[in-house]
């Protein structure tokens, strides 16, 4: 099944070797997405599939629309004024654009570019999501907090200061806290929007390790401007340019043997 997106007159014949490993049905599929900020068309006919339990990276130069596209996957763009979307986005085969948005957002979690913990304690930050979603009836708050912090590889570092302010820990730890907070509501998909861009290399490495381990529990889509990061963590990579998805394939293929010239130019550093 070819998943190359042909955007320019240059055609490319998909071969068996370029077919990525995937499960039977994709976890999420976007079909023919056009997206508008007011009159400006930011995304042009983007179609892509995200396989279950895989990490997909979205790369591309600044302003290419990769973050905009990601933010449509959990409909958070709807909170901005004058935005409009055309097309379909499905989760397990059902179109999410018609459904109740709060439930969608519980199932599709998001971690943002800069850590944004609430002005509460570490404990209260994590408990917030489960509390409003009524998840505390079955599991105790303390259990959820420990489980989420362990999944985010932060438990050992903060277990003794759970009730201190979330701002009292380092930037890298705050970002892992935000990951724990997102994981606390048990999402099926986790979207990360350049999560390491504000962090130092050591913090970045910790998060990258974390993501590779997490994919067994959920599907991950990560936007990154760091190609080495994509190469390190992602199973498949999609390349965006000027609001279009140019190519989506196994990460190896994208970086070593891309089909599209634009992809090759970007990878080799001719622009971006």
């Amino acid at each position, binding site marked *: 099944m070819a998943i190359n997106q042909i955007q320019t007159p240059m055609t490319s014949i998909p071969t068996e070797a370029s077919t990525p490993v995937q499960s039977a049905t994709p976890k999420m599929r976007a079909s023919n997405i056009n997206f508008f900020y007011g009159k400006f068309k930011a995304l042009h006919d983007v179609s892509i599939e995200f396989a279950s339990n895989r990490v997909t990276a979205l790369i591309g130069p600044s302003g290419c629309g990769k973050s905009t596209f990601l933010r449509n996957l959990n409909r958070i763009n709807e909170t901005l004024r004058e935005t409009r979307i055309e097309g379909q986005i499905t989760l397990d085969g059902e179109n999410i654009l018609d459904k*109740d948005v*709060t*439930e969608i957002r519980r199932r599709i979690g998001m971690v943002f570019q800069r850590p944004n913990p609430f002005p509460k304690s570490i404990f209260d930050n994590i408990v917030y999501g489960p509390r*409003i979603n*009524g998840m505390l009836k079955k599991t105790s708050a303390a259990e959820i907090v420990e489980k989420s912090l362990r999944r985010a590889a932060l438990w050992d570092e903060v277990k003794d200061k759970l009730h201190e302010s979330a701002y009292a820990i380092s930037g890298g730890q705050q970002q892992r806290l935000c990951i724990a907070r997102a994981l606390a509501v048990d999402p099926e998909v986790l979207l990360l929007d350049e999560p390491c861009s504000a962090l130092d290399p050591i913090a970045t490495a910790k998060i990258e390790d974390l993501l590779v381990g997490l994919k067994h529990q959920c599907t991950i889509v990560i936007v990154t401007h760091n190609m080495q990061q994509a190469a390190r963590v992602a199973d498949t990579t999609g390349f965006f340019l000027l609001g279009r998805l140019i190519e989506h394939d196994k990460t190896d293929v994208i970086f070593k043997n891309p089909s599209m010239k634009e992809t090759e130019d970007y990878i080799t550093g001719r622009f971006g």
Partner: protein
Amino acid sequence: MTARNARRKGVNIFMLGLCAACAFVTVSTLFVILGFLLYNGATSVSLNFFTKLPLPPGQDGGGMANAIVGSAQIVIMATLIGLPIGFFAGIYLAEYGGKTFAFMVRYVADLLNGIPSIVIGIFAWTVIVVPAHHFSALAGSMALSLMLIPITARSTEQFLLEVPRAMREGSLALGANKWRTIAKVIVPAARKGIMTGMILGVARISGEAAPLLFTSLNNQYWSTGLSEPTASLPVMIFLRATSAYEDWHRQAWAAGLVLLALVLLANIAARMVISRGASLPR
């Protein structure tokens, strides 16, 4: 959708609706005020109102000419005293101030701003009325000018600081010295905002009655000089409204309509001049 989510949705709509209701209730008070004033006052605003002196209750045809003129006198004098002081103090704060002294001045200006106007009235009374042994328009003007000074200083400072640094440096780089730069480049660049701040300040003091209650007091007749008690519109409104007579009540409504119209027009005009985005000092 689960029952829980349906409930959350319901709460969402209810609370957000409540907030909208709050917004519209609070904004509508402005229109309620205008409405009542127009309804009750419009019929009493006549030519007589602007040209005749007040008459004892029961007699038709009186007006508030002396209060209108008196207010004008007091406010103009207060402006002449307070505006320059505030203006230059504002320049000092924006252009010259070192750290500590400017900080002190700014802090004290805000303090002065926050002093209840009746206390300012007491001060003016102690300083002018007591030594002179009589009430005077001068005392009233002094009280009002004390309110105008900090308002003008802070708003002048704010608009001067908004002038981009590049403009300052451009002038200095051409060899102009500092005061020239301020006088010929910076102040003109900020003049719209500064003037707006001044208009708003003057509009504010022209509506004040408390500081005038025992400084300029009141006068049933024309006052002949600055050292006489003088009628003013806000004080007249207070006295007429709290009196026992129907036709004096009508006069109060008329005066209220005139005063509010002037103050609101000044405010609307001033705020429209200011570009959107610049917020005015409180």
